């Protein structure tokens, strides 16, 4: 059975690289295994439906919906204004404000692309107008957008939690400290670059300006407080927090700020359904394939091989990081995650690595892939906004990977960075 699964996996990889849609390539591999292995083919639709028939995964479409509502209601404008009032007056202040905006926005939307597309246009335009190099402005925006799926809520963490059977609440808490660290290391990098490039200072608008912009954006800024506060205090589960946040976002858009119109609602719902379909059909196909892998005992066979190759958790983590970074450069993050989870998570657990820590490491690795060539989707979004060539953007982003890689190394080497908060809150 294991040999058969390896042969099928080879064919699956060929199909994937040849251009088969990912869900179909995974589904066909599962179908081939069931057919040749003599299992009832009805297991295919049964496992597909079973993999999304769970309450925790309901958080995925609801967080997607919230992202679309917040995007349509243009709440980012107010947050950018507030972040600029707070920190825009230091050298390289607009770049610092871009990072701060991403950190705040990350607490509202769990997607790097949504962050880059939502606030990127305003931030890049302002930075270019202030005389920043377009490449630098675009790179800062792209790098800061990667904080989105690390600070909760996070769509990739929901998918990881469901696929690896790990508490989504714990994952969300585990992402908070690394997310803040990412923001701080990016700000340190901004400070160096600002000095090196002679970025201008802007006059401080005064404390009243900070208070005024805070008041203007108060209800928007309360969104992360509602989500995180509700979850961490145990009032809501992550799925319920997503639903409450959607209702709150609708309230903000329709009643408080009146920036949302009823005619936008249809498009928001269809976009939500489409994005949900793109993501969850992968989860469905991966669920069927995951069943085949476990029946073929592939994880049980690969884990001893991995543990025999790497003599300790540290070398394993470094090798796993390298593998995930390379895969993330060439493959869409969620798809890569669904493929790698059945192989890497059992191995990590066998080394005594907490699956929560490994989850944050995996998500960060694959999110870094969104800003690396050749298939970095955030890179594409920002490049188009900044009107830069792909080559220029690919070169400019390289130094901005350093702070993110430093955080990746830190959370790999020092588990308390990820595990301290969930253990403190949830025991």
């Amino acid at each position, binding site marked *: 059975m294991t040999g058969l699964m390896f042969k099928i996996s080879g064919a699956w990889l060929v199909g994937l690289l040849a251009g088969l849609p990912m869900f179909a390539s995974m589904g066909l591999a599962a179908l081939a295994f069931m057919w040749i292995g003599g299992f009832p083919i009805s297991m295919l639709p049964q496992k597909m*439906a079973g993999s999304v028939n769970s309450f925790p995964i309901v958080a995925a479409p609801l967080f997607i919906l919230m992202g679309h509502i917040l995007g349509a209601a243009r709440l980012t404008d107010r947050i950018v204004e507030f972040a600029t009032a707070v920190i825009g007056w230091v050298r390289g202040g607009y770049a610092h404000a871009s990072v701060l905006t991403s950190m705040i926005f990350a607490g509202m939307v769990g*997607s790097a692309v949504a962050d880059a597309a939502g606030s990127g246009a305003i931030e890049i*335009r302002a930075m270019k107008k202030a005389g920043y190099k377009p490449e630098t402005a675009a790179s800062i925006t792209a790098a800061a957008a990667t904080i989105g799926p690390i600070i909760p809520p996070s769509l990739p963490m929901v998918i990881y939690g469901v696929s690896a059977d790990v508490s989504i609440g714990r994952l969300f808490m585990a992402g908070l400290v690394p997310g803040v660290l990412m923001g701080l290391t990016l700000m340190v990098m901004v400070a160096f670059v600002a000095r090196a490039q002679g970025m201008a200072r802007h006059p401080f608008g005064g404390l009243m300006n900070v208070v005024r912009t805070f008041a203007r954006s108060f209800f928007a800024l309360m969104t992360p407080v509602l989500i995180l506060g509700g979850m961490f205090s145990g009032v809501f589960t992550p799925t319920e927090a997503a639903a409450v946040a959607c209702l709150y976002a609708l309230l903000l858009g329709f009643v408080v700020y009146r920036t949302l119109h009823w005619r936008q609602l249809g498009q928001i719902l269809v976009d939500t359904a489409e*994005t949900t379909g*793109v993501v969850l059909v992968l989860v*469905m196909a991966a669920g069927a394939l995951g069943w085949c892998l476990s029946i073929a005992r592939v994880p049980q066979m690969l884990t001893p091989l991995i543990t025999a190759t790497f003599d300790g958790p540290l070398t394993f983590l470094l090798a796993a990081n390298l593998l995930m970074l390379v895969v993330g450069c060439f493959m869409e993050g969620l798809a890569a995650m669904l493929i790698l989870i059945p192989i890497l998570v059992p191995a990590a657990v066998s080394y005594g690595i907490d699956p929560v820590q490994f989850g944050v490491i995996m998500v960060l690795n694959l999110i870094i892939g969104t800003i690396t060539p050749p298939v970095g989707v955030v890179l594409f979004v920002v490049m188009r906004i900044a009107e830069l060539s792909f080559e220029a953007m690919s070169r400019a982003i390289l130094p901005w990977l350093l702070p993110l890689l430093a955080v990746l190394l830190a959370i790999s080497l020092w588990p308390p960075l990820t595990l301290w908060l969930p253990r403190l809150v949830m025991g």
Partner: protein
Amino acid sequence: MSVEPGGPASEPPAPRPQTLFDRVLYAVAGTFVVLLLGTVSAGVVFRAAGAPLGWTDEGAGFLMVWLACLGWMVATRNQAHIRIRFFLDQVPRRASPGVETALQAGVALFGGAVAGYAVHLIRVNADVEAISMPVAVAWMYVPLLPAGLLTVVQALLEIRRQWAGAPHAGRERFEDAR
């Protein structure tokens, strides 16, 4: 930093003309998003009111399968599914329809298998009742049938379009996927 109105600099791809089928599909998919939100919210509200509903978790699970399949159908119609096109784009123009036909045949085979065996699941679960709701478990497998069938039809349409000489109409859609 002053905030100016206006979205990203790039223009979105031109929308594909919508058929009546698309409009109905969008309406149904949108309705299921609302139903899912309503079900989870009802669970929160009634629990807070001290009268928890027993069916909301299981109901949300059922709706999730429906929404996933409807979203799969919407993404199929809009050719929004994730695929690696790098090597496919290197294929010489003359060989392209043949390669695309082989790929779409694979997609159709998968869709056909899902639809065909979903019928079997619907039949065997028709008299099995859900735990907390007065509905048959078969309803969970029902949306797999149209999703699989649409996958087959769309793959066949794509093959036809390839041999008619039309260019690739898909768009890479990753927004909000991570």
